[in-house]
């Protein structure tokens, strides 16, 4: 209870009870259902876009091709270059899946960003970690570790300082920050929307007029969260591309 408002504890906002009498490791809750829906949405969307290929794209095909073009030109060409086009399907999956999982935050009825739970961000960050290290070892062999820890162009006494920092930042902080960035952004947005919704409801019940300002802010913040959802999907994808590109070209 703060100022007469009953803000729900955080676990009420993001944890959901198991549904359909399921328990244990394969228990199904709202978040899992939304994951399934996201899979369905992304797969069906790109399936439809690929079925009816028209020369002049319209509707779904247009949106899908804009997404592909964005991943290709806006992300891969800007960070990796031409040889990164091999990773387009993977990065396209990451981008669209993260975005759809995020956008549930503002869909009425769902209103729960899947990425506000640590599961998906952590899994994807670990996958990205595996992929960029694999790419590094494949492209540079055993020198990958040396190139990471001892970046060229540094006077050698500084390596005592630089090498551990580079090692930690590449192999530990990268996956951590990648997952935490997505997770914390979505959680914070979710909590923000909940706070304003609670505030608006309480003020509506008591004074009516007082709910105008927080209600307007709630609408504005909902729009802002759409932006954040897209931006976080973009940032997650472009960081993945940057990590893969960095593992390909050691001179970075």
């Amino acid at each position: 209870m703060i100022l007469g408002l009953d803000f729900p504890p955080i676990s009420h906002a993001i944890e959901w009870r198991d549904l359909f009498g399921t328990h244990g490791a394969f228990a199904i809750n709202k978040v899992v259902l939304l994951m399934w829906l996201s899979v369905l949405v992304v797969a069906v969307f790109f399936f439809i876009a690929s079925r009816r290929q028209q020369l002049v794209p319209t509707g779904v095909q247009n949106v899908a091709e804009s997404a592909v073009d964005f991943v290709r030109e806006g992300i891969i060409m800007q960070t990796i270059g031409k040889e990164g086009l091999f990773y387009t399907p993977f990065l396209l999956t990451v981008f669209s899946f993260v975005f759809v999982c995020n956008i549930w935050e503002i869909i009425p009825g769902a209103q729960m960003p899947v990425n506000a739970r640590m599961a998906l961000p952590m899994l994807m960050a670990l996958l990205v970690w595996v992929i960029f290290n694999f790419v590094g070892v494949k492209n540079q062999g055993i020198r990958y570790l040396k190139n990471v820890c001892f970046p060229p162009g540094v006077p050698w006494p500084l390596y005592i300082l630089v090498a551990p920092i580079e090692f930690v930042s590449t192999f530990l902080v990268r996956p951590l920050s990648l997952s935490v960035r997505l997770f914390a952004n979505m959680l914070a947005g979710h909590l923000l929307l909940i706070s304003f919704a609670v505030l608006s409801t309480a003020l509506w019940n008591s004074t009516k007029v007082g709910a105008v300002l927080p209600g307007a802010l709630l609408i504005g913040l909902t729009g802002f969260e759409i932006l954040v959802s897209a931006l976080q999907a973009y940032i997650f994808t472009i960081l993945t591309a940057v990590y893969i590109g960095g593992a390909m070209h050691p001179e970075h």
Partner: protein
Amino acid sequence: MRTRAPLAGLLLALVLVFVGPAAANAQSSDQVKKEAKELAEKNGGKEADVNCIGDLIDGKRVDDCHKAPSPILPPTNELIWGAISFVAVFLLLWKFGWPGIKAGMNARTERIKSDLDQAEAARTEAEGVLTEYQAQVADAKGEAARIIEDARQTADAMKRDLQAQAEADIAAQRSKAASDIEAAKAQALADLRGEVATIAIGAAERVVERNLDPETNKALVESFIDQVGAGRN
């Protein structure tokens, strides 16, 4: 935290259902706990929650029994389903969506490229035709200029010829006129000379015939000259 509300409700129910009769029947606390657990299990309570009932009856807090799940650490079921979902969406997109989109976009790229190539070829051809046409026009213009120049030169030449001829004619006429005049003059002079000689002879004859004094002589000559002059007029 989520488990608190149901647990509190459960506890309240237990107090109402069991604790009152328990005091009356002097049942042991263990008996109450056991029955409460059975009831909770029957109603579908989670194992972790059910195990808390004993502690709750002993007057402890829910937090003492088990902590609210961390909002940070992912639960196992979400991890497993998340992994399955990601792999599923990647495979679906890779196998079914991507080839079609890629083929479509590549086909469009090819099509646009070939269209551009064709347009380029057509443009080159049009430029060739235009150049040729321009060359022809330039030729025609040069030809026309040449013809005009020829005509002008011809006209000039003709003009010059005509002028020269005209001048020659004029000069010839003029010289002929001059010579005619000369001849007429010479003729006139010759005529005059002959006449003067005749007149002089006549005058002399008269002078000689009359043999007069100088005054008469003079008057005679003068009258003769007057006579001649009048006769000439």
